């Protein structure tokens, strides 16, 4: 069996995965997407049997996964999964279709329509880019002035992606949310991501949010597995909020980070991921 790891840079997660693969005796071929030259009309004959997709770029993820799936590799996560989760609008729609509680969301393509969506949602509401992570350009719109300012800035200075206006109901949460890790059929662990002075209203650990272990209740397990089931089985970080009406899923991360979640949970997340990759090569 042969294995690969697609990457843009060797992040702390990718380094942990390489170290864990070596411990498990797995030779993990490093596939740099920066150096990729994909002969997309000729399937590679000796492509790895299973590949962990860890590119930092959503766009590169789609192309490289398409190429290696065509070459017969089992890519984790699959192209279908990346399409379903990597664009927040797709994910919101699929979650709602599957009956998973998720915040009410609108997509609009002009400032005028975006403002209509804001008025329907009421204040505060949230605007996010449909692609990207780490709470980059995720803004809380507290009033009409804020909404008009953010939307006008995106219209004038933003890229085509930023002019897809993804507007979402703001969910009151108890100063924290939950990141649950799914590997195949199992919720292996979860953390609370707790807001701090540094992170403000956000909870992302990359923005200063604090990570603490979160017990996996039957309610949490059920909603997280239901959320992950909107697409192919794989490895996901499912983000959940505790609203006054119960748990609500707002995002599914298909290249989930985990560097800050190993210590608080005590779970060797990269070991579980590498073991899963091994299983996939045998299917």
């Amino acid at each position, binding site marked *: 069996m042969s294995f690969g790891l697609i*990457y843009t*840079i060797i992040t702390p997660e*990718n*380094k942990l995965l390489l170290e864990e693969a070596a411990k498990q005796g797995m030779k993990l071929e490093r596939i740099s997407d920066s150096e990729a030259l994909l002969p997309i009309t000729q399937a590679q004959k000796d492509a790895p049997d299973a590949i962990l997709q860890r590119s*930092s770029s959503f766009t590169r993820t789609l192309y490289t996964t398409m190429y290696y799936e065509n070459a017969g590799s089992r890519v984790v996560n699959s192209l279908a999964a990346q399409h379903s989760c990597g664009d927040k609008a797709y994910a919101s729609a699929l979650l709602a279709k599957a009956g998973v509680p998720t915040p009410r969301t609108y997509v609009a393509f002009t400032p005028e329509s975006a403002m209509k969506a804001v008025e329907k949602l009421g204040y505060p509401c949230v605007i996010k880019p449909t692609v*990207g992570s780490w709470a980059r350009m995720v803004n809380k719109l507290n009033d009409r002035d804020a909404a008009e300012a953010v939307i006008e800035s995106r219209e004038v200075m933003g*890229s085509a992606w*930023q002019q897809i206006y993804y507007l979402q109901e703001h969910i009151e949460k108890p100063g924290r949310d939950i990141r649950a890790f799914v590997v195949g059929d199992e919720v292996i662990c979860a953390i609370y991501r707790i807001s701090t002075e540094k992170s403000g209203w956000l909870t992302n650990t990359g923005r200063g949010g604090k990570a603490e272990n979160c017990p996996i209740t039957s309610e949490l397990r059920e909603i997280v597995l239901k959320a992950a089931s909107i697409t192919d089985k794989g490895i996901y970080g499912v983000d959940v909020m505790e609203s006054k009406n119960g748990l609500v899923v707002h995002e599914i991360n298909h290249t989930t980070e985990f560097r800050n979640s190993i210590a608080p949970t005590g779970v060797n997340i990269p070991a579980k991921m590498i073991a899963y990759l091994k299983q996939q090569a045998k299917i």
Partner: protein
Amino acid sequence: MAECPECAGNIAIKDGTEVGEIISCPDCGSKLEVRSLSQPQLQKAPQVQEDWGE
């Protein structure tokens, strides 16, 4: 030792460093990508792009 492409300072590459890893120059603080280990070579790290994430 490798040379920082930004400030020409000398940077010691730690054991266990991987090609593709991002390190910081201790002199100027630049983020640098390790391009080679056999003959240590660094280049300015790529900027985070709009579609980068998890």
